């Protein structure tokens, strides 16, 4: 026991109070892992959301182009065989997104 100096109130240190270093470290670890994971999700989500928006917007534009037969549309003359009948027409293709394509057939006018 320590002797108290006059004028000071002695507060005893109770080492059973508060948290141990191990507890704090584990808690910190859990919180850091959670926050990092959440941030990771957040970044991925933003990326997915951005990509989806881009694809949707591009798809709408390109489908409009395909309907309007703009210059962006690639055309190929094709023969369509239905049993013994041969029909001719044009296959219209347009790319959207990174490497996706929309196709449409139109008969010869």
């Amino acid at each position, binding site marked *: 026991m320590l002797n108290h100096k006059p004028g000071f109130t002695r507060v005893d240190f*109770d080492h*059973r*109070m508060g*948290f141990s270093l191990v*507890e*704090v470290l*584990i*808690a*910190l670890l*859990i*919180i850091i*892992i*959670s*926050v990092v*994971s*959440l941030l990771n*999700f*957040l970044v*991925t*989500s933003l990326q*997915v*959301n951005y990509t*989806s928006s881009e*694809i*949707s917007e591009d*798809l709408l534009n390109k*489908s409009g182009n*395909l309907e309007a037969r703009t210059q962006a549309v690639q055309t*190929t003359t*094709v*023969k*369509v*065989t*239905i*049993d013994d*009948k041969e*029909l001719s*027409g044009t*296959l219209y293709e347009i790319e959207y997104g990174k490497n*996706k394509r*929309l*196709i*449409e*057939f*139109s*008969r*010869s*006018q």
Partner: protein
Amino acid sequence: MKRKSGIILGIALIMFLVISIIGAALITIVMGRAKQTNDLEKRTQAYFFAKSGVEIAREYFENTNLQNKIHVIYGDLSNEDENGDISLSVSKEDNTGDWKSNIREKLEEFRIQQGKEITVAVWKDSEKTRILSTGCAGDFSRVITFELMLAGNSGGGVPVFDMAIFANDTVSIGSSQTIEGNVGTNATDTSAIRSQGGGNKDLKIDGEVFFGPGTDLEGIDPKEYTKDGTVSALEDPRDYEAMLPKFPDFSESSNLREELIDRGTLKVLESSKSINEDGYYETIEVKGKNKKEAKLIIDTGSEGDVRKIVVDKLEINSDASIELSGEGKLNLYVNSISGSASINVLGDKKEIDRVVVYYSGNSLKNVDLDLVGTLFIDSASDIALGQGNNELKVSGLIIYGGNGEVSMKGTPQVSTTALFAPKATVIMSGTADFYGAIVCNKYLANGNPGVIYRNAGEVFSETSLEIIAGDGDEAYELWGE
């Protein structure tokens, strides 16, 4: 103070839980968004597949007799072979039972069974052609319905030029006449289609025979009329007279004449001249001499343009011609023709609406006209088709609004002629052969002429027959989903 052992771990775990829930919600939202985009892609492609199906079916039925069947075409559009060609299959279903009453469900069953990108049903429903097309991309499908009534083949649902001869009244066939194609009449008397002598034995029609709606066909022997076809009654009468287009007014007081600049007289004698603008001419004279040709070239302008030339007197001789340049069309309004006119004889025999000659004169007695195009005669008399003197040699469409006679002693053209003269009497004699289709009030033949049916709707381009039936007013396409 009592120690709260492990409370910080509890709080950390709760925080972990909360963060996990937020993360899961975030993932759900984002995945939903990605799925939406993916669905949009598939729906869009499925729509284009369905639309392609309609196009394929339209092209298919134009080359096929659908009869009373539902033709189901199916296959993959994105599976091209090494030549870049596409192969589809067709299944012909009876237009009865479930296929008739619930075609949508049956087609859906068929689609699921086949699992193809395109599944399309096409069938005839009275005079309409109906198409139900399903496009499938991934697990998405879109359905498009399409209904079509062709202008060239209809006027309020009445087909035109689907028979070798159709007369409102009688069809009197020559004793040794050949008819290759169907013959029809609005008459309900079974003797309305008969041989020249009056009976109906051994008419040797190489096709089917149709009488007016409600004709009593009891006791009729089809063999007396046809070689191996059938005799039946039409479902509805055909009022072709009502489908006669209105003859345009280009008289002196007409709006058309007022619009046009008066360009006086144009003479093209043993030379070549061009017309590049619309105009009214009192006389156009194109004449060559001693085999030295004279040529009048009419520039029709760009695609979509219609050059309008009104001329009171068109005088051409056999060493002269009128030819076209440009990508547009020509409407030539003529009050009188004399001589031997060759108009657009080098033109495309499919594009018969490229030149429309409107003739308002009273007679065509002394006219030799060689035309590739459409000739619309208001009410002139003395119309003779053939290749001889004073005869009309027309490859294309002839519309005659009068109730006179159209005679044929020689073969007008080996290429197709469609004659639309619903008020007239068509008279064929000698060894005249007619290749095409005739619509008239009465048909009379002597001797052994021939009528060989050719489908004008197939031979000529799509727009060529639109002049009949109010220029396509009655035609429609109806798209739906």
